[in-house]
């Protein structure tokens, strides 16, 4: 019984070690180009992400200005999980934000959310 927590720690440590060099080589996004296109389509779709309503994005026309421009995202969010959590429910970090809770309110499903996160990290 005593060895179990140690085994878990070993698992996590080994997996982290395995992933780190891969991330180190590609600081932006590891998603395939076709997935990035799909993520972009969801982000730009007015009935899905509709990110342009509030955020400027390179290549997006007539963006709103209620949120910060989405650029240098990999630099601003070195931890992918933080960005994903922000899109899932931004009110956790800032109760006053008007950003819709895309995950919590099921505006995007898990797959769509991941595609959008990958796309944003490529910006």
């Amino acid at each position: 019984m005593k060895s179990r927590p140690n085994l878990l720690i070993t698992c996590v440590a080994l997996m982290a070690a395995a992933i780190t060099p891969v991330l180190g080589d590609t600081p932006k996004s590891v998603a395939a180009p076709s997935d990035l296109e799909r993520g972009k389509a969801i982000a730009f779709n007015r009935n899905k992400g509709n990110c342009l309503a509030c955020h400027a994005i390179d290549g997006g026309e007539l963006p709103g200005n209620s949120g910060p421009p989405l650029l240098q995202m990999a630099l601003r969010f070195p931890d992918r999980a933080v960005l994903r959590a922000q899109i899932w429910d931004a009110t956790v970090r800032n109760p006053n934000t008007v950003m819709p809770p895309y995950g919590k309110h099921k505006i995007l499903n898990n797959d769509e959310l991941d595609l959008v996160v990958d796309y944003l990290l490529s910006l």
Partner: protein
Amino acid sequence: MFTLSALSNLSRPVSIIGGIIVFSYVAIISAPVFAEPTTPGPIVASPSADRQAIRAHYERRFPGIPVEAHKDGAYAIDKKAGEQWLELEDFPPYEIAVDEGEDLFNTPIGDGTYSDCFGDGAVKGQYPYFDEDRSEVVTLELAINDCRSKFGQPTLDYKGAEIVRLSAYIAFVSRDQIINVAEPSSQAALLAYNDGKRFYSSRRGQLNFACSSCHVQLAGNRLRAEKLSASVGHVTHFPVYRLKWQDVGSLHRRFARCNQQVGAEPFARQSPEYRNLEYFLTYISNGLPLNGPAIRK
């Protein structure tokens, strides 16, 4: 101007500076918009304190723009769009509705006429009000149907064309009256007022927006290319001719559309919810002139 494509090929040190700029932007917009009062106040503010607070908010947010200017909605704060809008007023598309409304107004209803209830029709400034006997908010539309009932005529459908044309005529002949809703004082009136205030400030729909999210907190910002207008000008110009509708429509139709746009099921026209909302919104707009019907996108 700050363009994104120009930033895409920047070297790393400059990128870091860009990141810092973005971070500070986030820090600024994340700061609480509404500061907590410094001394403990009552749980609920009085209507007059609300009105003062909202006016102060817009004065801070739009320096140099008098609160009364918001009667023109987004055109008060978007000069370029305002110029195009003024050109539309040369041949106002709501004129037909006003003419038809005048004919309806002068058509007898049973043994009486609308004039028996509304005189020359310049009465919009008297609505909405809280009727203590009925213990509910009475709007112009409600009063029109009451008038018909008084003379034994069937009430009009609140979604129909007839009532919106009648109210377009009444709005037109009531232009320049100053909104002056009596301060809610009885318990029942305060309940109705607070119900409206609560509705306005509650996040709803799948997109999780309160009315105030856009029209108080973000007023003046752009949603896509559209500037978000201030709450205090919202009731002055109804019924409104919307280019999107290609017709005149009521304030409650606009409420319903706003609710739907954030993914919330709308309420019925003239429901207690929307009448209380109209009561609250009109009270905080006290002092602004009526200027309906008007044109909006």
